[in-house]
């Protein structure tokens, strides 16, 4: 946030983004810049036809010009006025549609960039923040920036025009007006020196307050609130936060009130002085009555144009920060982006993967998560990956799935680095159920078949029968056409954790191109019965395939022919269940710890 604020305050940095803004606009709408230019012209000379008509008319009256020549002179002015009004109408109606289209195009590009950036880069906190800020572009920020720019630029031109007129008619009034400007900016500087720290604190207070409101009403906290009696304590926290917010808000209001009083007083003084000077010269006859009226009008316009220049400048600087985030996010060249078309895996039935002395470290972490892992994985093979929390199990699997890239060492598929294969072809070989798997609010069948347009019904029915989806889906009238959750359908079903995991498993098994199945705690919410049934069918479901099963319930290791035990990022034990259990291994210790709890006959229960 601090970084963000600095960017906001730096007007020069904001203007450096101008080429980027223009190129974004131009790329997405070729005529947009032309429209902006017309807008600038229309706005900057908007007020002059009227002023000039007035001046011209008074001149005609005082000089007793003939009626016909007066009309001849005024027609072009009226025509220009009409033209400008029409131009504004056209622009005002056509722009919102164009803004919408540009916003959508930018959002589509943003969406495709999200898909393109590699997992490791995207996962970082910094990138996630940048992504969230870049997403603001979808809230129409780009259109707002276009508008602020037009306002800023046209006020500037209008000011220049007014200055030129005033130099010619009454330089002294110009001096007064500019002096006023200087005083105003001095007041504004003083004001922002005081108010900016308050606003910064307010942003923090506001985030805290909205977090408190959120937890007070969000469904996920409802249970906790009732049991732990948070109500009184939360009210206290909210009141404290609110008091702090309101008191800083009152201070802000006070300073802004003072500022606007001073501004108005100053405008008033400038106008009085203008009237005095111009009135005096007019009475003395040194300037014409028409110029008196004209200059009064100019001063009015000058003041209003300076106000709109400063306010649009400020808004522009604030808004461009988002453009910067957007451009940075879109231009992010990920160090790991893969070449588009490279080697394809040979269509041999038995693939072979090898980890060769693989090291991996998380950014911001001082210690390696994996420290020289060596591992051989054949097809078919049933592997259990075990170890304590944080041992590196999930990290290893992410490296295998190319979500992370090793810092040292190499992972090979059939003898070639896994990074030599195209992403599409490599991923065809893998399927998974992640610990934090995500299903979609589509129908069951769409979820299981990954919303593919062609469905292999024989395979589908096999899969749903074997994974147990068929058993629980019977009780829903729409069967596989049932929607998951009510995110967008009205008759969706909130399935239980166990049911959702079964759907996730079915989706994973349905992927027939896969040879390797990564199953990370896939049965964590199954009941004993369901787990037992899956274990019995496991061999059949994944026949001829390789599976890597991660679970803290070590009974699952009986499913595997090979157990790999990780500890602090190293493979410390490896072998079949029987091999490991016969020696004094950590695996045996952990297994027996859980097994002991089931040896009920030996326990003293008669309490």
């Amino acid at each position: 946030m601090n970084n963000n604020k600095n960017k906001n305050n730096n007007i020069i940095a904001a203007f450096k983004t101008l080429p980027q803004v223009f190129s974004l606009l131009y790329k997405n709408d070729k005529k947009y810049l032309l429209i902006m230019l017309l807008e600038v012209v229309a706005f900057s000379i908007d007020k002059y036809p009227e002023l000039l008509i007035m001046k011209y008319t008074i001149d005609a009256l005082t000089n007793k010009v003939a009626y016909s020549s007066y009309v001849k002179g005024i027609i072009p002015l009226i025509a220009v006025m009409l033209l400008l009004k029409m131009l504004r109408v056209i622009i005002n109606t056509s722009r919102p549609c164009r803004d919408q289209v540009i916003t959508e195009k930018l959002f589509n590009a943003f969406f495709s960039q999200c898909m393109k950036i590699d997992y490791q880069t995207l996962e970082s906190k910094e990138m996630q923040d940048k992504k969230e800020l870049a997403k603001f572009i979808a809230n129409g920020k780009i259109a707002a920036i276009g508008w602020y720019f037009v306002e800023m630029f046209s006020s500037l031109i209008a000011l220049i025009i007014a200055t030129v007129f005033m130099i010619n008619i009454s330089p002294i009034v110009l001096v007064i007006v500019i002096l006023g400007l200087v005083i105003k900016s001095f007041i504004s500087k003083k004001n922002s020196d005081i108010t900016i720290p308050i606003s910064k604190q307010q942003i923090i207070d506001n985030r805290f307050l909205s977090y408190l409101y959120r937890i007070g009403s969000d469904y996920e906290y409802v249970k906790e609130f009732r049991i732990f009696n948070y109500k009184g304590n939360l009210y206290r926290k909210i009141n404290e936060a609110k008091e702090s917010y309101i008191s800083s808000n009152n201070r802000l209001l006070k300073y802004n009130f003072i500022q606007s009083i001073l501004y108005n007083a100053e405008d008033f003084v400038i106008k009085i002085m203008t009237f005095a000077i111009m009135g005096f010269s007019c009475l003395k006859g040194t300037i014409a009555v028409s110029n008196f009226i004209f200059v009064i009008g100019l001063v009015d316009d000058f003041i209003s144009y300076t106000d709109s220049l400063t306010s649009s400048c400020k808004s522009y600087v604030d808004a461009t920060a988002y453009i910067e985030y957007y451009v940075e996010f879109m231009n992010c060249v990920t160090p790991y982006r893969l070449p588009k078309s490279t080697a394809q895996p040979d269509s041999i039935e038995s693939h072979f993967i090898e980890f060769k002395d693989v090291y991996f470290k998380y950014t911001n972490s001082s210690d390696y998560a994996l420290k020289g892992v060596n591992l051989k994985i054949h097809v078919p093979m049933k592997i259990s990956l075990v170890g304590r929390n944080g041992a590196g199990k999930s990290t290893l699997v992410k490296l295998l799935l190319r979500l992370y890239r090793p810092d040292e060492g190499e992972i090979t598929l059939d003898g070639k680095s896994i990074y030599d294969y195209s992403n599409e072809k490599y991923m065809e070989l893998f399927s998974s159920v992640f610990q934090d798997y995500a299903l979609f609010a589509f129908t069951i069948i769409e979820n299981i078949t990954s919303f593919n347009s062609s469905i292999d019904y024989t395979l589908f029915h096999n899969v749903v029968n074997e994974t147990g989806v068929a058993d629980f889906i019977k009780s829903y009238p729409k069967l596989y056409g049932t929607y998951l959750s009510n995110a967008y359908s009205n008759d969706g079903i909130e399935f239980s954790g166990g049911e959702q995991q079964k759907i996730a498993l079915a989706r994973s098994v349905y992927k027939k191109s896969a040879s390797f199945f990564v199953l990370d705690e896939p049965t964590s919410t199954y009941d004993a019965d369901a787990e037992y049934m899956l274990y019995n069918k496991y061999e059949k479901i994944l026949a001829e395939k390789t599976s890597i099963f991660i679970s803290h319930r070590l009974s699952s290791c009986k499913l595997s022919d090979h157990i790999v035990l990780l500890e602090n990022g190293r493979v410390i034990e490896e072998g079949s269940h029987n091999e490991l259990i016969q020696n004094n291994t950590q695996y045996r210790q952990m297994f027996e710890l859980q097994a002991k709890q089931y040896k009920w006959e030996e326990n003293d229960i008669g309490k």
Partner: protein
Amino acid sequence: MSKAESTSYSKSFDENGTEFSGGEAQKMMIAKTLYKNAPIYIFDEPTAGLDAISEYKIYENIKQTSSTGILIYITHRLSTGVNSDNILVFSNGKITERGNHIQLMNHQGIYASLFKSQATLYEEVNVNE
């Protein structure tokens, strides 16, 4: 209050907050529950994401900390039942079995069959040994 005691949980509103891992968060939840010092505690799958050793330690700690209260465990890991005084088996919204572990094992109902199905996966090894 020291910094160590006042670390914000997650970065929802505090930039300096820490995102704790699933296992850490679960341990914190258990701490929060026990801190309340209530006569009745309810634990719904309290150790789902924890490894065997952490799980064992936590169960031991819960037992010690709350030795005078009533503990209600909701779990799919039936080994928890062995040390419970009373086990309630729910089926279709009804309590179909109740009793201690030995009673329910002798009853040979749903509990016994579910327990055996989990236990066999561990038992075989003991036979092999």
